[in-house]
């Protein structure tokens, strides 16, 4: 099988399709022209930049090049997981970075050392895309988990205080909120696993097939990745929710509701 390289002209033809969006925006007076232009420019610039960066990293496959890149990716994922939600508390950023970092690196390590077993482990062709896919999903779980947790703690405040006032421990008071938050963080991944291959063809698998890999081999990778993603986003969600719990409930079984604030 051969592989069709794309030229700048090919990309320009595809990019011209944005004119369809532009025309729609004008015709329906959506007022989205500026945003469309900005989005289109960002798509091109960001992807070209990461393409050249990865090209450079792949050429210098040293751990001291790959590792900092992986750290930067993780940090950005952690920060963007903290950026959502209406309510926040002091230390939310750190909690979010810690839970994304811990879960994604643990699971990526399992993937690289135990499942795929590549040598050296930092072979960028494997390490970077796998970490990237895990990070993308973990960050969704973590941010949904934290968001739901702070929301449940706000709306369930009276019930939480009632449980504490009756002699409940901080754990008993927070249990329901924790359960709801962990559920909320894990459901997107479960949904994704339920429809994969039927409704959606994952990007990685599609990419491998486009690059000439046989579909049967490509799905093997996809199966491994799905389980890595599921494990990491579950771990990350639980970690983030428990860290939130520790921040907002003191050892003296008090609910520190003043620490929760609107953004």
């Amino acid at each position: 099988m051969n592989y069709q390289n794309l030229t700048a002209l090919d990309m320009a033809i595809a990019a011209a399709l944005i004119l369809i969006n532009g025309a729609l925006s004008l015709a329906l007076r959506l007022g989205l022209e500026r945003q469309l232009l900005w989005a289109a420019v960002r798509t091109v610039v960001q992807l070209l930049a990461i393409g050249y960066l990865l090209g450079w990293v792949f050429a210098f496959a040293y751990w001291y090049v790959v590792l900092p890149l992986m750290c930067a990716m993780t940090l950005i994922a952690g920060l963007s997981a903290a950026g959502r939600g209406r309510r926040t508390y002091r230390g939310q950023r750190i909690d979010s970075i810690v839970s994304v970092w811990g879960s994604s690196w643990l699971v990526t390590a399992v993937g690289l050392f135990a499942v795929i077993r590549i040598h050296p482990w930092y072979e960028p062709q494997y390490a970077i895309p796998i970490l990237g896919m895990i990070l993308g999903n973990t960050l969704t779980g973590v941010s949904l988990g934290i968001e739901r947790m702070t929301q449940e703690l706000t709306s369930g405040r009276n019930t939480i205080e009632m449980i504490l006032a009756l002699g409940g421990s901080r754990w008993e008071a927070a249990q329901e909120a924790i359960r709801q938050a962990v559920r909320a963080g894990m459901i997107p991944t479960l949904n994704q696993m339920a429809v994969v291959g039927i409704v959606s063809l994952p990007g990685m698998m599609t990419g491998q097939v486009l690059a000439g890999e046989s579909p049967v081999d490509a799905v093997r990778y996809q199966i491994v990745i799905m389980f890595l993603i599921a494990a990491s986003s579950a771990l990350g969600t639980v970690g983030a929710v428990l860290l939130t719990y520790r921040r907002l409930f003191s050892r003296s079984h008090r609910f520190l509701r003043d620490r929760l604030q609107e953004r």
Partner: protein
Amino acid sequence: MSALIETRALARRDERRQAVLLQPTDFALHRADRVSITGASGSGKSVFLRALALLDAPASGQVLWNHRPIANADIPEYRSRICYLSQRPALIDGTVLDNLRFPFSLKSLRKRHFELATVTALLQHAGKSPDFLAKNASDLSGGESQVVALIRTLQLNPEVLLLDEPTAALDPASSRDVEALIDAWFADDPTRAYVWVSHDLEQAQRMSDIHLHMSAGVLSGATQA
């Protein structure tokens, strides 16, 4: 006379706005005391009561229970005996019975058991028939909800009740039910005591022997600890 609970220079601050909510307060509650605290809203009555219930951390000072400071591990036990009742009753999903059974699912109360006879007697005091137990909590009126919340607390045989305007949002009939339940609980055992926070002077006069007043975080007429 020995105090059930005491405070030593107990003070509260709003950390975010750096405002004083409660000036250092010495207070003692003895057996058989019926204390009322009146004052304008925002004066710090509830702040003080919540601090007594150990629901909010003090900026300084301490609360003593039987003359001893309370360790973190003992706080749930303390709260199951020194019971705080809020103005807004919080009920869990389910029936009235589910709500009354709920406290016994908590670790600190696991050694005690739900007693239907106790609950039925309490319901009778509030003029409710036993089939009230099967009602859905979400169908109750505000007054009925508060009665359920109060019975949920009273069945635990608390040593002390900390009542945070329990009747402020209720109609006169429900208010009388709540007052009658508390009267009966108090009369049942001479070692019991309560602190009633109210903005209703008449109620405070009627329901207490020791009248205290809170103004801008200062509790006046407080007994010396």
